[in-house]
């Protein structure tokens, strides 16, 4: 099972990014093997609109089953939910801390978007 965590950097010790659509990047972590990679999110940082949708599309394309992030808006939430990806908001701390919390079931799964969209 793979998970995606919005990240401010490309290291496993990097801090989680509070933003989803306009996160600096994503750490894609494989829970079985412990392997991870970093995908930068530059394209969406610079896009004028729909960053959440596109970021969601990108993590869905990575076949992750869960996303851990600070906040998630309604459009990203819609895409992730349609793909059956579980969303955990309120992420604080480093990526490896969050992975541990996830493994120990200490993260709260979001049932709704927790912030407003930025467009309409």
């Amino acid at each position: 099972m793979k998970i995606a965590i919005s990240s401010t950097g490309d290291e496993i010790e990097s801090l989680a990014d509070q933003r989803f659509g306009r996160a600096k990047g994503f750490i894609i972590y494989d829970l079985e093997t412990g392997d991870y990679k970093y995908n930068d999110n530059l394209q969406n940082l610079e896009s004028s609109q729909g960053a959440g949708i596109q970021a969601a599309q990108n993590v869905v394309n990575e076949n992750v089953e869960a996303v851990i992030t600070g906040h998630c808006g309604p459009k990203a939430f819609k895409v992730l939910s349609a793909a059956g990806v579980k969303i955990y908001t309120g992420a604080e701390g480093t990526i490896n801390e969050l992975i541990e919390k996830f493994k120990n079931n200490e993260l709260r799964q979001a049932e709704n978007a927790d912030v407003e969209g930025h467009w309409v």
Partner: protein
Amino acid sequence: MKIAIASGKGGTGKSTIAVNLAYYLSEYKDKKISLLDCDVEEPNCHIFLKPEIINREKIFLSIPDIDNEKCTGCGKCVEICRFNSLALVKNKIMVFPELCHSCGGCWLVCPEKAISKAQREVGELIDGKSYSLNLTYGKTRIAEPMSPPLINAVKKWGKDFDIQIIDCPPGTSCPMIAGIEGTDYVILVTEPTPFGLYDLKLAVEVVRKLGFKFGIVINKSSHNDHLIENYAKSEDIDLLAKLQDNRSIAKVYSKGEVILEKLPEYKELFKNLYEGISSN
């Protein structure tokens, strides 16, 4: 001739200048004059002109409608969409219509012809007559983020008039550019304040980059005019006119009346403004 009235900053007096310039020109009986209020999120010209409404038309934007029977989930439409209004999830396309700019890319690239055009209402076009001029304006649907299609519809409505005065939305982004596009001259209305100057500079950057002829009008002209004058001089930009910040104008304005109708002594100013533009 198409004359756009624009500004960087809001509230500088675009509509005041647009309404009175159109009113002044309407006294030339041999020309058909149309004022096109393209500030479609907050149109105001009709408040001054109180037109008799002749036409109302809903304006729509084409958005993609996916036929799930034909769609194979190839994702080509998602790939071409620069506005992130499509996503491909579990082999199905999700559409976020409020983000669609109706560029048409998706229905062109779809190899299965699975995308047809659905319509989304963006607002209403309202057209009427006032004095001896025509006024057309747009009103966006509440919460509508996409104003350029409505702006374009308003401009198209005025295309057969000899002189078209286009009152543009403030700012320097898509709606403003949709307003000035295709015009022969852009009047940038500013006020002599640091805010007016700052936003004027942004607007000048836009019109220069796009290659428009343009000049500046100072509204609410005061002892601070040097702020704008020095800038115009250093950049070699025409200063077309100055409309004073005085109580008699403010009174007429605050009653929603046309300045030139109540204070005809200002006709000379609009005459000079128009001549300054048409000699360009």
